[in-house]
């Protein structure tokens, strides 16, 4: 084994890239859960976003439109979940699972004629001046725009939840939907919007996989990333900045594992590939989750 083949700066830089899809999906789910809804269909929305983004990029010839298409696809699938759980009052756990199964099928169907095509390369956007700083520059400031976008969304969500009136209402709805309803807030409307935002973010995360990480369309390319995103939301105790930490931790395990594979470590590939999943379990056990939003996964029906 040749550990010297692993370049720590490249490792840390690729960590940020590896964390981005999970980060995007998780920040969306965080908002959904803060509104009191548990959407287990992240994986399904992610893979739908992956395929929608890929198709949009290839047919429209623009990565920007591709990501927009991915967000739209994810949001639409999220809307299906929202209508079922919020309007038709179906069980959130079961519906989330159904969403994943449905999304996997839908994506496989939509993507069949796109297998084997390569996505256009998205150029990096080095941040002027900052990217020239040694060590830190290449790690933090020499990435494609979506990496920055992910961090930007985390910051925006944090600001939204902490400082805005709408964020306060969203938290209120998630904390105690009966009380929010009694005060005259539209529980279902708030939740539908949150769910669509969550879908859009999951879609972006999926598209990042199919357009940047892989970068082509293959069936099942999310490989559980959506589930890991769900785990990271719990790990983060529903707080945006801790989410960033969780995603980077996970990205680190993934990248390290890939690097060790490449360096020819004596452990079989299959065992190294387990690492991210095992790490997720360990993190779930070790981190005592904070307090979940009070109305999480409770059905809301305005009676009397």
């Amino acid at each position, binding site marked *: 084994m040749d550990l010297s083949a692993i370049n720590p700066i490249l490792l840390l830089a690729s960590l940020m890239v590896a964390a981005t899809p999970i980060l995007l999906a998780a920040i969306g789910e965080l908002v959904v859960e803060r509104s009191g809804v548990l959407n*287990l269909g992240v994986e399904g929305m992610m893979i739908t976003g992956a395929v929608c983004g890929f198709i949009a990029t290839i047919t429209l010839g623009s990565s920007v439109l591709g990501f927009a298409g991915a967000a739209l696809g994810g949001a639409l699938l999220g809307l*299906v979940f929202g209508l*079922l759980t919020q309007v*038709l*009052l*179906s*069980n959130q*756990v*079961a*519906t989330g*699972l*159904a969403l994943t*199964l*449905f*999304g*996997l*099928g*839908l*994506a*496989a*169907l939509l993507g*069949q004629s796109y297998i084997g095509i390569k996505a256009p390369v998205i150029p990096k956007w080095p941040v002027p001046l900052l990217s020239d700083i040694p060590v830190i520059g290449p790690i933090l400031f020499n990435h494609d725009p979506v990496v920055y976008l992910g961090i930007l969304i985390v910051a925006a969500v944090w600001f939204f939840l902490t400082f805005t009136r709408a964020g306060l209402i969203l938290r209120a709805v998630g904390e105690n939907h009966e009380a929010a309803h009694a005060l005259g807030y539209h529980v279902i409307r708030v939740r539908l919007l949150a769910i669509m935002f969550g879908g859009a973010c999951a879609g972006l995360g999926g598209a990042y996989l199919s357009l940047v990480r892989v970068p082509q369309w293959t*069936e099942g390319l999310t*490989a*559980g990333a959506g*589930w*890991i995103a*769900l*785990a990271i939301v*719990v790990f983060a105790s529903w707080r945006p900045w801790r989410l960033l930490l969780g995603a980077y931790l996970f990205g680190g395990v993934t990248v390290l594992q890939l690097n060790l594979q490449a360096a020819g470590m004596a452990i*079989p590939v*299959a*065992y190294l*590939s*387990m690492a991210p*999943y*095992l790490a*997720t*379990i360990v993190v*779930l*056990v070790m981190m*005592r*989750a904070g307090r979940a939003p009070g109305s999480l996964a409770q059905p809301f*029906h305005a*009676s009397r």
Partner: protein
Amino acid sequence: MIRLEKRTAPSRFWTYAAPVLAVVLTMVCGALLFAALGNDPFVTIRTIFLDPLFSEFSWYYRPQLLIKAAPLVLIAIGLSFGFRAGVWNIGAEGQYILGAICGAAVGLAFYPTESAFIFPLMVMAGALGGWAWAMIPGFLRVKFGTNEILVSLMLVYVAQNLLASMALGALRNPDASGFPGSRNLARYPSATSWINESAGLHWGVVFAFIAVIFAYITLSRHIFGFHVRLSGQSPRAARFAGVNPGLLVLICMGISGALAGLAGLFEVAGPSGLISIDFNAGYGFTAIIVAFLGRLHPVGILLAAGLMALTYIGGEIAQSNLRLPAAAIQLLQGMLLFFLLAVDVLTHYRVRFTSRRVA
């Protein structure tokens, strides 16, 4: 304006009618989907839902139905206990894989000895393997309050990697000159789960029927079944009634894990025959649909598994005869679950149409 009013008791009529309506709606939407894909919708629907039973080749397809339905029934019955109690084991696929690996390992360890004890030992190993794999999320939930949905799911990916390493390593057929995959257990008389291969009958089918009867009696007649239902509906009332919630989680996880492990063992020692990288066909996930489609009721699960097996077989026929993409069938199954969840609202709520709005 449409309003929903909660019923004081679930509607008896819709309890039975909702799944039927869901199937009908799925057929209608499926037909539209197939038409959009350029297939004749009527021919496709007929191919998927009727041909396996009534076409000229149905003598070949009917046994296939048993083979496909048996693991679905076994896994879904196990899951139904947990789902009723609010224990969400979503990782049956992983427990299924572990059951297969453990059971096959025992069988392969005895190769080529012939003995009547080998197969029962394999059955036990399979059940134990699935049970142990399910105990991990169960134990973590009880001990640390860890979310069992996420842990059991993560363990599916771990199990798949384990399966890959077994198929390429420890369990690889030493006589296969480097090809991945184990020896064929179905061709090893002491280890095969086949009873009558041409009739589609293997021990998994027998166990599936036993599981249905066992579950039916437990849920309707035994106090344990009552406690399972109570825990799912009102956890506080269950604790008041004397249920130990942690123990219940472990038992429910254990039952579902052991049954999924059994399903994996019977599959690997029969229809599949050998441990290979992708011998698992997603039964663990489809069984979740089956459990819900059957309303977590043993008899319902039996019917739902039959329906799901039908779409699998019919889907294969449609793939080869009509060039329908495999993904379309997966989509159809997802749609079925969606519609079921959607029409379920009719069971618990009354739909009212109100026109007047007093300003």
